[in-house]
């Protein structure tokens, strides 16, 4: 459970990084007062001309993002603006927008939702006609025309963020500094800086979520092992009596139970690691827009958590077994 959820967290962040990097922009500008990660605040698109006037700015693309429930969102773009910044979307099937309620989806969504050009996708309580399928890896999974999305949500003339492409990437920091001096309220970041923010610590509630999952993992591990070992000790009362009759000390009996528990925890951890490959396959097959990565650096951590939880759970049953009266234990049927 821990490895899968950490893998999904890291996978989603890696996917966000890939798609952000795929835009090909040098600078990201967000609305004043907005968080680095988040799409809750918009600002007027007329600022695009302000950004465009900055020296060495080659192209500017305004993007409006509308959350669509869960981890899904719909991204409104001006296809020409976006092409100027990103080099254009690569159509695998179909083509650009033709009607207001046209949508372009990437190959990931096309596979996940089994869609082709001409198909319909219901998002934001609207039926969108899929006009094209593009290669994934640029900004979003679903694009619609920015003015249409602005109109639908009364965000006319508003954008969530702007991507700026320079004629010379080495001028990024200078341009960021220049823009910041003129637009003091705007979060303005180089794309590299933005990508560095895409970590577990910067996604709201992700770190607490992982901690909660780990705590639950330890608690569940503790309870399962405690109950299993407690039951095992009761069921093996006679065996404990036999060991005592053979001269086994309390430490020997506790040692056997703890070694057994440690082996089970290690076996369980190996099974858990193998199961993350299974969940990865399931996610890739049935929900490819989610991403799970295999996290080998978490294997020793998860194994350690499993062993500690299991040992805590086995300690009391082990001590109880060690304290059993040998005669009563031998009489147990």
């Amino acid at each position, binding site marked *: 459970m821990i490895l899968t959820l950490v893998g999904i967290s890291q996978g989603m962040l890696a996917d966000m990084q890939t798609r952000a990097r795929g835009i090909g922009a040098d600078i990201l500008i967000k609305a004043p007062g907005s968080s680095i990660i988040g799409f809750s605040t918009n600002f007027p698109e007329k600022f695009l001309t302000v950004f465009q006037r900055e020296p060495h700015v080659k192209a500017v693309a305004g993007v409006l993002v509308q959350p669509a429930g869960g981890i899904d969102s719909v991204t409104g773009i001006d296809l020409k603006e976006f092409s100027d910044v990103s080099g254009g979307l690569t159509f695998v099937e179909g083509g650009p927008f033709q009607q207001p309620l046209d949508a372009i989806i990437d190959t990931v969504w096309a596979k996940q939702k089994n869609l082709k050009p001409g198909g319909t996708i219901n998002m934001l309580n609207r039926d969108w006609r899929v006009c094209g399928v593009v290669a994934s890896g640029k900004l979003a999974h679903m694009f619609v025309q920015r003015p249409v999305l602005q109109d639908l949500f009364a965000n006319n003339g508003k954008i969530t963020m702007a991507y700026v492409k320079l004629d010379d990437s080495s001028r990024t920091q200078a341009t960021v500094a220049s823009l910041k001096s003129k637009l003091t309220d705007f979060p303005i970041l180089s794309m590299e800086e933005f990508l560095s923010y895409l970590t577990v610590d910067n996604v709201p509630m992700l770190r607490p979520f992982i901690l909660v999952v780990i705590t639950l993992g330890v608690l569940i591990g503790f309870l399962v092992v405690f109950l299993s070992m407690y039951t095992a000790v009761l069921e093996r009362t006679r*065996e404990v009596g*036999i*060991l*005592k*009759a*053979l*001269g086994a000390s309390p430490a020997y009996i506790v040692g056997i139970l703890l070694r057994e528990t440690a082996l089970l925890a290690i076996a369980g951890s190996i099974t858990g690691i193998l199961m993350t490959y299974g969940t990865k396959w399931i996610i890739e097959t049935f929900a490819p827009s989610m991403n799970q990565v295999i996290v080998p650096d978490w294997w020793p951590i998860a194994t350690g958590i499993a062993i500690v939880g299991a040992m805590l759970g086995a300690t009391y049953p082990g001590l109880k077994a060690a304290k059993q009266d040998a*005669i009563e234990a*031998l009489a147990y049927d």
Partner: protein
Amino acid sequence: MTSPSANQPIIETHDLRKIFRVGDVEVSALRGVSMSVARGEFVAISGPSGSGKSTLFNILGGLTPPTSGSIDINGRDLLAMSDSDRTNLRKATVGFVFQKYNLLPTLSAADNIAIARNIAGKNGPPDAEFQDVLKLLGIASRLHHKPRALSGGEQQRVAIARAIVNHPAILLADEPTGNLDSQNSEAVLHLLQDLNQRLGQTILMITHNPEAAAFAHRTIRMRDGRVVED
């Protein structure tokens, strides 16, 4: 601790008493048992149910302490022993054979024997003398089987092998033929007799069966927690 001399009795009890408390009621299981067993002797203890045989067995094996009296096992005062000392007594000085065999069901016969050696801190292969004992017991070819795949007689022979693998000074057998048919009973009793005669193994066997008791050098009869005939 003084080292036991060859002439000194290996077991000697005097006025041994054991009182169990059941709620507010005190039950006297042993009411002053005095007895002596010489080194290399094969002694049967017989008596009806409730005569105190099993309590005496448990005390001699260090499974429970007596309430009063004196008891020397292989030159050591058992009354003065701590729990840890009695654990060591079971590990090194006394071997047990039970009526219900009491083999660990998840281990093979060989592993049941090996775990007794492991508990005693011996992890290498058993000595050559023990290999002869295995031949004597007739279980050499059955050692890799789990207890469930062995007959009652075979299980009891494995239990005997486990009890003597660490060369205990005393072998305590509690109704060793109680769960066996007459043919297997006789085989097991002959084995105990062989172990006593060939290896000089001191054996104390609890039985209520006069035919089994006849295999011993002498029989101590008990009734109501006392020795009534020796």
